[in-house]
């Protein structure tokens, strides 16, 4: 049993990390009253920008052993942040400045972002006339997925807690920090005020647009890291089109699941990571492989059930930010 847990839990955690990044980012965004349905697109853009950055870096270095660890990590990280920041700015410009409908902008961003990721993922090699057969950034990935030292020596404790790449710990740290900032600081209070009722927030002198812009952009950058984690750590630096799948949408669903609390998000994403790979552990027998496809439904059915249960309970504490999804126009009271 213990050996099962020590293999299952780390795999669940690894599956959950992209969801956690996406979920934390979306919580921050939604707290400002912006419902960003473009998160799946943002995560693709974040991932592919990181890939492009490190692709060029690996090309520029004549031999993998000459790569500097700092640059190998910082270049994809910064490229990813820049790419997702641009997506965040685009979303904020359209919804905050131009007051466009948030759901529509989000859907368009998902179309665009997923297309952007798959296009450059599939065509990058051709565009730069490279002679490699596919994008495989295994050298960069080695830096991202390097386990903590002494993880091997500590038995099950090491397997459960120390056997991950640095972005795993980063994601948990970001979620904890987000929880602290939202709950216990003035900035967090202002942000929540903007999300609950921008008219009141404006009246007490909080700059609504500035908070909405900042929260959306920061949220997008965090979500973008989830995409980067997926390619660089989970997929060992190999890009394949549509491999990231629907994790972006699940991240948005997690936000409701966790009733807008980043700390709950940590556990919920690991739980979902587990649900996501549960089908691998349910025995089907060799002649009934088709049942696996049914078991893959589990995370979606659980999400649906949880959605319904939270709506039946309808607790006052568990409500979305009051102005979620609406654009703010000062002269329209």
């Amino acid at each position, binding site marked *: 049993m213990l050996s099962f847990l020590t293999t299952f839990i780390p795999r669940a955690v690894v599956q959950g990390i992209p969801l956690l990044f996406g979920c934390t980012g979306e919580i921050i965004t939604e707290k400002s009253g912006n419902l960003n349905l473009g998160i799946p697109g943002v995560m693709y853009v974040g991932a592919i920008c990181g890939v492009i950055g490190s692709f060029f870096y690996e090309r520029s270095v004549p031999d993998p052993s000459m790569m500097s660890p700092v640059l190998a990590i910082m270049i994809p990280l910064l490229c990813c942040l820049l790419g997702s920041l641009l997506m965040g700015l685009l979303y904020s410009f359209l919804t905050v400045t131009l007051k466009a409908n948030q759901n529509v902008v989000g859907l368009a961003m998902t*179309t665009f972002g997923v297309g952007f990721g798959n296009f450059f993922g599939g065509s990058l090699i051709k565009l730069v006339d490279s002679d490699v057969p596919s994008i495989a950034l295994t050298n960069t990935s080695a830096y991202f997925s390097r386990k903590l030292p002494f993880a091997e020596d500590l038995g099950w404790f090491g397997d459960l807690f120390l056997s991950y790449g640095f972005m795993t710990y980063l994601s948990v740290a970001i979620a904890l920090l987000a929880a602290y900032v939202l709950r216990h600081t003035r900035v967090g209070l202002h942000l929540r005020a903007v999300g609950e009722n921008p008219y009141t927030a404006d009246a007490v002198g909080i700059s609504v647009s500035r908070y909405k812009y900042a929260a959306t952009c920061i949220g997008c950058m965090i979500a973008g890291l989830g995409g980067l984690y997926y390619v660089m750590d989970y997929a060992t630096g190999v890009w394949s089109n549509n491999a990231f799948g629907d994790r972006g949408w699940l991240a948005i669903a997690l936000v409701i699941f966790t009733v807008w609390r980043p700390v709950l998000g940590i556990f919920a994403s690991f739980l979902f990571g587990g649900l996501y790979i549960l089908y691998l552990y349910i025995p089907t027998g060799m002649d009934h492989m088709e049942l696996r*496809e049914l078991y893959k439904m589990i995370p979606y059915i659980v999400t649906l059930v949880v959605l319904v249960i939270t709506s039946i309970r309808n607790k006052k504490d568990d409500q979305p930010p009051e102005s979620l999804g609406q654009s703010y126009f000062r002269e329209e009271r």
Partner: protein
Amino acid sequence: MNDKIKEPLFHIVKRDAPPISRALAVRAVAIILAMILCGIVTTVTTGLDPIQVYESLFVGAFGSRRKIWITMQNVSILLLIAVALTPAFRMRFWNVGGEGQILAGGLAAAACMICLGDKLPNALVILCMVVGSLAAGALWGFIPAFFKSRWNTNETLSTLMMNYIATQLVAFFTIVWEVPKGSGKIGIINQDSNVGWLPQLFGSRYILPILVAVVITILMYVYLNYFKHGYEISVVGESEKTARYVGIKVGKVIVRTMLLSGALCGLVGLLLVGGINHTVTTTIADGQGFTGVLVAWMCKFNPLTMVFSSLLIIFMNRGASEISTSFGLNQSYADILTGIILFFIIGCEFFINYKVQFRKKSAKEVQ
């Protein structure tokens, strides 16, 4: 003078009832700007000179008689999806589950073709397919609607989850029905007997979806604008409280409208499986359930004008795949161009509904 409050450089004012001519002009400018940007992006990625870009776009969509027919067929499918989603959106019910409803309908049609193909005469099989796919689509629309009407469950997410449940269901049946075993796909169903293939009208396989799209679009326009049901949908969309006050049963309207919306999406699934592809795969809807939302929204949920917006999207799509095929690029190129066009169209709404007023000159002189 110093106690004068500084007036900002500009401020934004809402226009009341902007004239249609202005709305059209702004949209036209937005589309032209978007096309220019698409041209620049294409030139940068492929090195094609700009004039040729537009030429290839046009050739891709309307280059030959066959291409024109396929473009028309794709337009009618996208139009049907957008029209199917419209009643839900008029009610402010965010049905992003078009994808799942199409898949459910398509799966039901395929099930009839496979299981009843050699037992019943062709006409009966087709009848079963029609009934089955409408019912399956309606069921897929009913589930989120029921939760929404009963407990106000967030419909954006519940419809989204229904998409994935439908996708996995199709994946399951793909393996159950796969031909030959182990290939992972169903292949063309009833290739020899053609049982369950929707009939070709006037000797052309493209006419049926086009005809269905035209009829449904007109009927939907009439239903939404001249029937009591349509009026109730609009009232619920504008304000649920008002609807309740005037005695409209909001829950009933939500469920009824989503049954309709889902059933029409199921119809699209039927056309895709029975009339066009003759097989079912998990990607049969190809993201059009989402594109349909954007098409419908761009037209302010007016079914008649959706003809133009779906034409625009399909034109870009077909054109972009022409370019990406001839340059050996990835098919996702179309999504990027579609995205650019959408951003411009979404953004331009601002210039229709609002105007920017700059600080008046006189105020400056006083300073």
